[in-house]
């Protein structure tokens, strides 16, 4: 089947079976490898992307379910690493191995889009689906708060 996808503002046509998860279309057909495979069953969040701004697990999202929704991946979060979550991640020195961080960033960005000043409990709830085996959780929590601050400051 032919699918039309808009990824990070660019239109793509993909010939694929309808069940192919968005994750593998992004990675293997479009060559956009920032979105990661880790569990394949929506348990870890490493594959998180946005569909019309909503965070979804691309590993279990078949191409047929994407429809006309616009896809945003970590590569599209900003042109130059300047999205508030990226700046906060850098300032907080969050990353270790880095493999889960695309998903962490996408989940955090979606959280801030819907909640400009999340509490620790809000962060716990929103980020609980994203596993990090390096144990960067404390710094993620700090960075989400900082990103919220940067984002609010950027608006005023």
């Amino acid at each position, binding site marked *: 089947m032919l699918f039309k996808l808009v990824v990070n503002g660019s239109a793509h046509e993909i010939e694929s*079976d309808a069940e*192919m*998860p968005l994750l*593998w279309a992004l*990675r*293997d*057909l479009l*060559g*956009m*490898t*920032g*979105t*990661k*495979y*880790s*569990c*394949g*069953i929506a*348990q*870890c969040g*490493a594959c998180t992307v946005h569909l019309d701004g909503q965070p979804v697990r691309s590993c279990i999202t078949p191409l047929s379910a994407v429809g006309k929704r616009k896809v945003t*991946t*970590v*590569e599209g*979060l*900003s042109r130059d*690493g300047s999205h508030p979550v*990226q700046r906060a*991640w*850098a300032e907080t*020195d*969050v*990353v*270790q*191995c*880095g*493999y*889960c*961080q*695309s998903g962490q*960033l996408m989940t955090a960005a979606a959280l801030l889009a819907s909640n400009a000043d999340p509490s620790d409990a809000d*962060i*716990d*709830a929103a*980020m*609980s*689906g*994203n*596993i*990090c*085996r*390096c*144990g*960067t*959780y*404390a*710094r*993620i*929590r700090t960075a989400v708060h900082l990103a919220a601050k940067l984002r609010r400051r950027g608006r005023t």
Partner: protein
Amino acid sequence: MISRRDLLRAGSASAAGLWIAFNVPLKAQAAAEPPAPRPLPPPNAFLRIAADDSVTVLLAHSEMGQGIWTGLAMLIAEELDCDWSKVKSEHAPAAPVYAHTAAGSQVTFGSSTTVSEMDRYRTVGAMAKDMLVRAAAERWKVAPSECKVANGIVSYGAKRLSFGRLAEHAMGLPPPAAVTLKDPKDWKLIGTRVKRLDTPEKITGKAQFGIDVQFPGLRTAVVARPPAFGATLAKFDATAALQVPGVEQVVPAGDAVAVVAAHFWAAKRGRDALQIEWNPPPNGGADNVKILDDYRALATQPGAMVVEAGAVDAALDNAKTRVEADYDLPYVAHAPMEPLNCAVRIDGDRCDIWIGTQSQTSDQAVAARILGTTPEKVSIHTTFLGGGFGHRSNPFSNVVAEAVTVAKAAKVPVKVVWTREDDMRGGYYRPQFLHRFKVGLDEHGMPLAWDHVLVGQSVFDGTPAAAFSMRNGIDRNSVTGAADSPYLDAIAARRVTLHSPKTPVPVWVWRSVGHSHTVFPMECIVDELAHAAGKDPFEYRLALLAAKPRLADALKLAAEKAGWSTPAAHGRARGLAVHQAFGTIVAQVAEISLEGGRIKVHKVTCAIDCGTAVNPLAIEAQVEGSIVFGLSAALYGRMTIRRGEVQESNFHDYPVLRLPEMPQISVHIIQSGAKLGGIGEPATASIAPAVANAVFALTGKRLRSQPLQLA
């Protein structure tokens, strides 16, 4: 001082800038093992200074999250006095010159990267600076000693030249006969909180992990492997698999069958469609419960003698009080976020391999053997590792061996990608272990007799890495943290013995190696002794560690910062543990409560003494990460093996710590100035006993099995 004879200039063919390669003598080698004659290093480099002033550091070790991408660059930059904002890191290729200075092969293990490179990388920086200064001095016709260097600029009065402009000239000069490293009090970079150099790539999706490798013509393979340890391939039918769109080939690879396709999704569907019959494992296959029962039976007899002093049995018979207990730990998986993978391109007698690996030398040798070529014709391109924890240092280079076999059979470049389920069920776990203690206490409650029997598989015996760890049939890493425990010195009659049974379950090192199974029983039994003696566990440990000031200091600091002398809040309790591993001392106090019968860890207060703190920001990160890794295993980790088949498969049935469970961790660094120790692993092992001891303090229930679960 590094003498000229030890230095070897190389790489002068490169016009890109200054290249230095040299061989630093192995002064760190144990006296009992005289260093073997070292081969001359090939023309390779640790440092490249380009005309644009960029300083590129080549890393002899792999970045897997532990921060060496930054830390090793700091060592060179400290001596070079370059502009830190111009510093970049790259993984070095696989070559003998990049061998770990103590291990003798290129490998990232044992929290030892900075320990290995502290002198070598600083020396590289000092050598390069010397050559750059002499280049400038020649141009200006002044004495090198009259030139100054700061921030990547050599100056003499008003004259200034950047490193980039001097690099080519400097390259033509002979290397220095000797260099003197800075006095630590003059360090500008080492000891400061330096942020990671790999952050920009890792927050934009640009960082390349092994699984991200793509190039025209590269196929993806997903492999069907025997479903049970010891099972073998009987027969397979590829008809249905080959009908899956995108599937190109199905090739056998030993006891496995690989489906080679245009992309992962096709390869995975192709594998699902394979019809395979397996021969079942012999004797019904491994069973972890049965194995533990066997271990308990073995523990009734002493094993191979590891430590023996005094008349232990007589002392036990005469003891005022005896404490006896069994502790056990299950098989656990590493479960890094990036599943195993490896890309291979074979071209005649040459081969390129892209992999996030901890063990380049082994990978190279294994690939060369399969291809009937020599190691130098195998290029290893080390990518970032999406977590290592020991998982990517397999002693047989099993991932590489399989990928090379598949690529050779398929006759196309292939990237083998393991699914999460493949990765979790692929074996090479931390081994299951049983510890049996019999301890006799005197009238003051202090131990006078100690009998410790350990039962568990050796991770090194029978592997190509055996010589590293085996001594007289004993795997040092089976008993590390137990046989060399600082507590034993204070006990007159002591015996530690080891049984090393073999099972069909493949085992391997897991973050903190032997300590990952010894610290839990050691620090819990000492807690038991304290309670048997009616003493405070903190005071009791201090008494045992009277002759171990570094351990005592760390313990005191952690206890003080955790408020040990004041009661915990209602419904909470604290437990502690102290331990030495990889040259570093860690003391931890865990504060817990029970929520719905489950253990909730609220706070962990940690004191760490690694001698010299190269980058405190990285140390804090590694302590936090080690605690999370150790806590995941302590609370949840367990592989269930029935009929040789691993029952767990993914994060839904092999849970790990998630963000809401993250305790508040405070890290207190002790600058003792002692010999440099490692930071990547030491805090991993002591969190489990700290938590178990806190559970006892709260409930009076002694948890002697992991995972730690009440009822």
